[in-house]
């Protein structure tokens, strides 16, 4: 079985037409679906949150074994499909960077809640950075989470009254008061 890092690649990854955007509608729909699933699985395994379309270091878009790689147009097509499904967002108007939500924001919010409960933090205060990179988060999916994604999850919880976000001493470090 071929692998990209820890990620197991399916057999059709070696099928050359997989890397050419198919024009026939039914075929294309199937192709898009396979790419969407693959992108989400890969990002989840490797904890990747942002894909830059022009990056050479997102290895999923090429297969050196068969000497094929997706054109820019193809990458945009597959990521747009993810965006339309609500599993990704464009970070800029020119569509060069894409935020991948291999957990939906709602799912991340629940993960934060679980994290708080598991560590007995129901009434305490933490900075956002601590949530992201602190000792408690090690070994959980929260560790190293993209800051934008975390903020969105926190804001969602704030609207539900589960916590309050406030500005910290420095401009870029906000704090969170849990009241779960």
């Amino acid at each position, binding site marked *: 079985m071929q692998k990209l890092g820890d990620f197991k690649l*399916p057999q059709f990854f070696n099928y050359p037409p997989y890397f*050419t955007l198919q024009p026939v509608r039914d075929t294309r729909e*199937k192709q898009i*679906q396979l790419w969407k699933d693959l992108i989400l699985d890969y990002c989840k395994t490797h904890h990747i949150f942002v894909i830059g379309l022009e990056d050479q270091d997102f290895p999923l878009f090429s297969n050196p074994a068969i000497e094929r790689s997706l054109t820019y147009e193809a990458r945009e097509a597959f990521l747009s499909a993810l965006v339309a499904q609500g599993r990704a967002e464009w970070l800029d108007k020119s569509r060069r960077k894409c935020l991948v939500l291999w957990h939906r924001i709602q799912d991340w919010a629940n993960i934060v809640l679980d994290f708080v409960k598991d560590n007995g933090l129901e009434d305490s205060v933490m900075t956002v950075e601590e949530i992201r990179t602190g000792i408690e988060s090690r070994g959980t999916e929260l560790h190293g989470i993209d800051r934008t994604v975390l903020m969105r999850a926190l804001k969602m919880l704030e609207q539900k009254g589960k916590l309050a976000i406030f500005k910290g001493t420095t401009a870029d470090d906000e704090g969170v008061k849990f009241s779960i």
Partner: protein
Amino acid sequence: MAGNCLQAVELTTSGRPVLLPTEIECSLLSAVDLECEDLPNFPHLKSGLLILTTHRLLWLPDSTTTIPTASSSASAIPLAAITHIFAAKKSIKSMFHSPRLRFQLSVSPEGRVPDSGSGSRSVVVTVVVRGKSDLDAFLSKFWESWRGRAWEIGDEQGSSDAVSGSGSASSSGLYTREGTVRMVGVSGILRKEQEMWESTDKSLQDAFQDLNALMSKAKEMVMLAEKMRQKLLSGSQPNDEELGSKQEMQDWMLSVGIISPVTKESAGAQYHQQLSRQLADFVRLPLERAGGMMNLIDIYCLFNRARGTELISPEDLLQACSLWEKFDVPVMLRKFDSGVMVIQNKSHSDEEVFARIKTLVMKPDALRTGISASDAAITLGIAPGMAKEHLLTAESKGLLCRDISPDGFRFYINLFPEIDPNDLYLVKDYGIYHTWLRAASASG
């Protein structure tokens, strides 16, 4: 059966008359009646197509309106049997009637047009022109053809009798003058001028001679090409080299095809119809050789090459092909999604081609590296352009997938339907996906 009077005319599958070996069409009138009061058993020939050739007058029933019956089928009157053509009568009466043309025909005592020699009885035949046509132009061509007596010439080169140039009558008088003349004085200058005029006239006449000579030579060349083709066909087992030059010979011969091109002049308003039928006849052989389907551009080149002169424009070709829908011909025009237009036999089957493509694309090599249009062309025995159209059509039906890379534009069997969207890693141990995997892994 043309009653008992006139000769029968053989027709091709497209409804065009089969011409005699050196016969050439000159003019065409539509909506014409042929009548003969002197003969009671003269057939009922109403509102048909009258074709004047160098050898005969042909009357064809109009295929779109009349139903051919025993008495109104395609008939011919050999020009040899015509003894006189009457001048068109212009009178007040003729202004209100349909224009008419009368000629005298020599028949046997029973009222039949003889195949050879002349009959003993004389009858008058009237041609009534019901449609809008230029009768005067037709009449002058009728005179020319009748005077030309092309049926007497056979395979020999046309003699000067066949030349229609009006200069010949007057210049023959000049040629009988003998003796040299001295160039002195005014009479000398006048004579010099006359001699210059004579030589110009002679070279004009020679030029016309050449044209007729060329026309008859064309017939010889076609016969020669046919002989050589037969010889090549019956030749010994060819190896690859011979096969190549054999192909060349065949192609060259195919281009030497038609002696009697349908021209705007000779067919008038019927131009596109007649052209359409002639095209349907011509296209039969190249289509067979090309495997049942051929690019319209290739037909355009082949057809014009065979015509030699009187080339047709692309619009004429397109119009002629579009008219095929109206007739019962075995060929049709087809436009692919990509815009490419082809002519194909009505009997052509897309399904059969797809089955062959599928077989080709499931071979181990094709599973590993796919097929290109040229690969398909070689295997299917058709032109690469046609092969590409077939591959694209197969792709649109979901049979194939494309792969575009620096290696080129290739096609693979479509695996996508075989992949389970709920288990991306599953490969069943039977079926197309399994076969593909085995072939792909075999190369290491």
